[in-house]
Each structure stands twice: as C-alpha cells, then as structure tokens.
C-alpha cells in the first residue's frame, strides 16, 4: 500500500495506482477527457492536471498518468490547478467548440469564452478511438499518422481497412466525434454501416459535411 495526501487528506492506495485512480477511490473529482476506464492512460488532453509536491516546489502533472508515490502531496483543486485547467478548456474550445463533451466540461468549470483564434477541428487527437480500437476491439484498424500540424487519425491510406470490423467503437468513444460520418463516401468510411441504411440526414445534401453526432450512431448500433 502507498500512503499519500490528497488535498491534505491522508489516503492509502494500492501499489501501481495512478493519482486519478487514487482520487476516484476517495471520491475526489478530477475532470478527464482522454481517459476511459479499460483503456490505457494516454495523457493527451491535460484536463486532469493536479499539483504535486510541497509549496514552492510543486509541479503540474496529469493525474491519469502519474503513479501514486509514498508521501506525495497532491492538490486537485488549488488555484494553480484550476487556472491551468481552465486554460486547457479554453484551448479545447478554441479548437473544437462544437463538441458536446467539451462544451459540457467548459460549462462545468465556468469557462464561457475563449481568447484564442477560433477553429473548428473535427478531431482533438485525444486518441480514445485509437486505444478503443486496439485495446478493446483488438482491431488495430486506426491510428495516428503524420506529425505536427498534419497529425491525424485514420486508417492506413485513408481507405477502408481490412482490420476494421465496423464495430463503431471509435465513434462511440469520440468526444469530438472526430471520425466524420462518411456515409456519402462509403469507400473511405471507417464504419460505413449507415451506408446500407437510410440515415435520416442522408438526403439533406447541405449537411454532407456533417459529423455523425448521433450517440450511439443508429447505423453503427445495428451494423
């Protein structure tokens, strides 16, 4: 067992736990975006920042990847943490304001505007879908490709992948619904289940760039 202090409270957690798990065990909320139980921690969104260490020598770390250590002092809601977290939310809002998940998180933290250049990304590169595909669905069909500003998630050559089982797990976990519903282009579709059905929005050509925001997608649920 490991002894540490969470917001001043002495707690004990099992060896190998992360700070996020420790906090969860004691009912201390830490917001997350790229974390999901059953998937390996990834530490992409930085929403779960906490402050570790004593005053003056503390640092911000991501709770979902930081291992609990004996005698660690952890603060999950210090002023510094809250400020960092709100900044992360602003940045997320700046890149993907249409995401319901991000909007909800922003609202919960009272972030009502963002000060950066507004973009409308389809993907925040949280990697949830990649891990879902590989770890839960044993698909390994999608992954990261490219680098820097060209980094994206998709199948090799952006073509329908032989590994893809059309399970729709990627769309299910996506906070931004980054995997665009590509029913208009079945060849490139990752899921493509809906191409065999008539999704309600199919005729509305003005929505051809629309993302699949159904939760879960009717088509994938069936396919």
């Amino acid at each position, binding site marked *: 067992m490991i002894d540490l202090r969470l917001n001043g409270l002495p707690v004990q957690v099992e060896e190998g736990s992360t700070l996020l798990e420790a906090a969860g065990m004691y009912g201390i909320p830490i917001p997350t975006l790229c974390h999901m139980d059953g998937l390996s921690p990834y530490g992409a969104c930085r929403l779960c920042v906490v402050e570790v260490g004593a005053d003056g020598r503390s640092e911000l770390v991501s709770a979902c990847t930081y291992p609990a250590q004996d005698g660690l002092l952890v603060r999950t809601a210090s002023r510094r943490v809250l400020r960092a977290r709100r900044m992360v939310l602003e940045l997320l809002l700046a890149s993907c304001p249409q995401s319901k998940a991000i909007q909800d998180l922003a609202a919960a933290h009272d972030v009502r505007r963002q000060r950066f250049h507004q973009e409308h990304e389809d993907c925040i590169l949280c990697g949830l879908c990649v891990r879902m595909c590989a770890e839960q669905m044993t698909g*390994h069909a999608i*992954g990261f*490709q490219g*680098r820097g500003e060209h980094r994206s998630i998709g199948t*090799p050559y952006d073509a329908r992948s032989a*590994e893809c089982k059309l399970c729709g797990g990627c769309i299910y976990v996506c906070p931004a619904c980054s995997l665009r519903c590509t029913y208009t282009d079945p060849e490139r579709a990752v899921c493509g289940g809906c191409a065999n059905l008539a999704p309600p929005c199919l005729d509305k050509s003005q929505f051809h760039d629309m993302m699949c925001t159904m939760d879960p997608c009717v088509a994938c649920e069936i396919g």
Partner: protein
Amino acid sequence: MATLLSKDFVRSTVEKYRGRRGALISILDEIQTREGYLPETALRQVADLTGRTLIDVFGVATFYKAFRLTPRGMHLVSVCLGTACHVRGAGGVAAALQDHLDLPADGGTSQDGAFTLEPVRCVGACALGPILVIDGDYMANVSATRAVALIEGRRDGEGAVCPTEDERVFPVEVNCPRCNHSLMDPDYLVDGYPSVRFTVSFGQEHGWLRLSSLYGSYAIETGGEVPADTIVHFFCPHCHGDLMGAWNCTECGAPMVPVLVQGGGMVQICSRRGCHSHLLDLEVDPEGQTPPPPLPR
C-alpha cells in the same frame, strides 16, 4: 530505375533485423533506399513479417519526413523556405517552381514524373540563400527565373543524376594558400580536367601527386606507389610551403590540407591516402558570384 521490389528483399531485410524491436525505421529506410519510396505492398509485408498491424507501420512511415509513400520523380528539387532564405525571396522561387510544374504549395511530383518538388526548412547554407537543391547539388542565390531555367536544364538526359547516389560533381580550380599560385596543371589531365598538382612526401619518399579537380571525384595519380592509409605530407610545388592544415579529418583524424578555391572559398582534403573525406566551403564573393554549377558527368 528501380527494379520491381521483390518480396524476398523485404523478407531478407526484416530477417536482418529480427528480434530488434526498434528496427522498424531501419527496415523502412533500407526499403526506401532501394525503391526510392515506400510502396504499399512493402508496408503491408513489413507489417506482416514484424507482427505489427499496418497502421503501426503506416504511422511510423508518415511520421518521419524522410519517408515518402509516393514514388519520387527523376530529379529531386528541394527549395529552402527557411527563415533566411524566406527573407531573401525564397517564396517567389517556390511559387515560380510550383507554377511551372503545376504543383500545390506543399510540393509533389510533376505529372510527367520528371521532378519532385519539396519545400524544406533550412539546408544550412543560409548566407547563400535562396537555396535550391537539385539532386543534391546546392544552387545559391537563385531567382525565380533562374530556378525554372536550372531545373529545366536538368530535365532530360545529361544532367540526370541518379537520386539514390547523388554526388556533387563539378570542377574546382585551386590555389596554394601560402603563395596563391595556381595549383592547376593544364598539361596533365585527370578525369578529363586539368589536375591539381602537389609535391608530397611520405616516410623517406618524395614525389608528386595529382588530384582530380572534379569535386566529388576521388581520382588520384601519384609519382610513386603510395601505400593505402599512409598520411601524405603535402607541399606547394611553387613555394614549397607546408600545406598541412590545423584541422583534422572528421573521418580518420589525419590532418586536412586546405587549398584556396579560385573565386572564393576553400576546399580541405584529407591527407590520408584512401580517405575520401573533403570539405568544400564556398563563400559568395562581393559580386554575388555563385559556386560553379555542376557539370554533367
């Protein structure tokens, strides 16, 4: 140029790195060196043979700029868009080339497969910018019009340098750094060009040594037999000054021999027989002269 990639080649390459987890990059690199790019079939095969999934291999192949997934044209044209070249007008050069080859801003291979244009960030020759690199040959101070002329000059035949073995081959004329007499010997040709003459000594022996003046050629002729690996002492045939320089060869540690290039700059040659290291350091002279353009081999 490239032969059809055989499955066996991929297999033997993978086999060579068997058991080394981190070898994926080396495997891809070997395939690309042979093929000029990474064909889809090869990536699939590598994935199969290394027990990875295609997307893992694909992710690595797309992560590194050094890997390309589409075939390269006959000539590789890199236009530097680094900061220094940019302020010296590289943007116009890039635009002219894109226009000329009908390619998008991020480059690509022209329709006829003759040229691959790629924007690069700083090739380390900032003072000479805008820089254009054609098949490994550095062109300094290029303008938009000159850039188009330069690549067109390469289009067919003669100037064609095989991109996989690109070497810069052009003649340089050199002087003694001590007395500034020309070291060129127009009466004795090596590689079809006037040779560079030195007086040399090694051990108890004295004699002459003539180098090819083609930068990139290693042809050497000597008055007597110089055993490989000996460090040869270089003297100027005019002033008999000792030419051994203060720098040591980065490859073998022997002293380098600096000589002046007519028109500015200097070449350093490694004094060890058999070591092929040499450095060329051309400077722009006040009139904005450029280094000699490479000649066809």
